[in-house]
């Protein structure tokens, strides 16, 4: 009396590669929440769920590129990050978006200074990070990826992941104090 729920991500992807839609559905249900939160953490609020949908559609489209030797989450977040980058590019709003983030941060900082915020907010703290630092935090803490996996997703050396993580955590600790 089995269902696909018992399968590992890798086994599910093997089934998706064979065209089994039920396996794909199981992957979506398993990963939709962390993926939406990944985009939220990246500072995307209104479009986070749409971007997660885009990522899953892309996952299905590129299913044959997946190799079982790689961890599934590495593959998924490579796609997710690309969706995020493409979304910014295609709307020609990377600058505007970053500006929006900066303004939001300024408002938040003002609010914090004026005492209208009761306690440090994790979302605000994440916004305070540079995009490069936020990437490693979200992939490491948010998605549980190892440094090596993060280095593959972001295409940077493991040492860089480590140092960015260190800087990011210092900043987060200050923001969350």
């Amino acid at each position, binding site marked *: *009396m089995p269902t696909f729920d018992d399968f590992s991500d890798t086994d599910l992807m093997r089934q998706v590669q064979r065209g089994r839609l039920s*396996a794909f559905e199981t992957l979506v249900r398993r990963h939709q929440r962390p993926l939406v939160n990944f985009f939220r953490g990246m500072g995307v609020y209104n479009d986070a769920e749409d971007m997660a949908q885009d990522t899953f559609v892309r996952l299905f489209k590129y299913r044959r590129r997946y190799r079982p030797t790689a961890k599934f989450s590495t593959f998924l977040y490579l796609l997710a990050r690309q969706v995020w980058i493409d979304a910014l590019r295609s709307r020609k709003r990377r600058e505007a978006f970053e500006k929006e983030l900066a303004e939001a941060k300024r408002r938040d900082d003002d609010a914090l200074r004026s005492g209208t915020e009761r306690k440090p907010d994790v979302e605000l*703290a994440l916004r305070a990070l540079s995009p490069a630092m936020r990437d490693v935090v979200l992939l490491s803490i948010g998605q549980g990826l190892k440094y090596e996996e993060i280095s593959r997703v972001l295409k940077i050396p493991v040492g860089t992941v480590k140092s960015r993580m260190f800087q990011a955590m210092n900043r987060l600790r200050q923001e969350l104090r």
Partner: protein
Amino acid sequence: MRSNSCPTEPDRCERGPDAVAYALDALTDAERLAFERHADGCSACLETAQASRAAAQRVRDALAKEPTRDLLPGILDRLPAWAQESAVADTTHAFLFRSRFALRAAALVLALLAGAVLTVRRPASRQKDHHAFAKAEPAAAVMEALRWLASVQGEDGAWHPESWGGRAEFETGLTGLAALTFLRHGDGRHALAAKATPRAAAFLLASQESDGGFGPTSSGRMYNHGIVSVALLEAYRRGLAPEAEPSLKSALNYLVAQQHDGGGWGYSAHPASRPNTSVSVWPLEALALGVGQGWTEYGAALEQGLHWLGSLANEQGQFGYWQTDDTADHAALTAMGAYCLFKTAGVSSAIPADRTKLRLALTRVADESAEGRLDYYRSYFVASAVRAGADPQNQPPLARLRDRLFQERSLDATHAGSWNPSDRWSGVGGRLYATSMAALALDAESR
């Protein structure tokens, strides 16, 4: 080893990045050990690790929000049409059956590991235990299984799989299966059955949905519904659920409604969910029990289903999963098909398959099943099919299968009488499934 050169400011030790990685469990074993030696003398790193761990937990908590909607429907809408057409809810079996070599290898490794562990940890008790079981009578082992099942039946009359390594969505099906174990032993004429089955039947009848179905509307519903229907019909036939007739007819009507045009059953009535042997054996047995009660209105559905099932047998008498040539797990499928056809012979006008070929195929299956990895589900159908086919030549392999089953009985005193959840389906059904299926198999073999 202590380091005297570490600064006191948390972010100023050169090992700070390691402290963060340590807090996030991102170091290799060697790195971790090296860091721990360092941190033993570095309060800065200890503070960094501690504070990082706390901050990480806050981030994790903040990133655990649910989406505002289920994303799946929107995603499926955007997939190409061919992907939608290939959607089949019942691919799990196909995968498992097709991946039989990998699964068998994994099962073998697990069995060897388990054997090694038991041999190393408890060689004397194992030897003694196995010796005792080798002498045990199947009927005594079944009674011990029933006692264990009775001891873990819930106050509400149900058996709760999540307490025994199974999945909650199969609570109704597993309650039906446990009840069936009581009913099949000694034709249900014993004190344990008299006590356990009316309570189980009451729970099951109360759980019936308005459409006549049993169990949650998940992909496992047809298993839940089929097994519960068979159990309740067996209880009704024995007078242990006299009030059940309207519910049973409603359950049989549900089966008729879910039957595919070709005659079989899939995980649902949706056209994309192709009928398969493994799901269909339970509805067929339920319909046969209904017709056996004189409810002839279900005869047509039964005949249609049996003809569909018969059409899945190939020239060698082996059954397929979806179609004749889909015989990757032919042993279990052949046992299921043969059991169903033999068992319904009394209420169906004809067996739509060559009976001699079926018997020969079953002989091979019984022989195969006595060797290699154990599969409780298959064991039950092999033993039941051999009994239904009444072939004396199949008794020796059944005796070996019985010995194999005995070896899987729990050696742990707290689970005495039960069977270890050790086969490929145990991740779903847990100890309740393993014990019920093993006892049903032994019971069928010993009758």
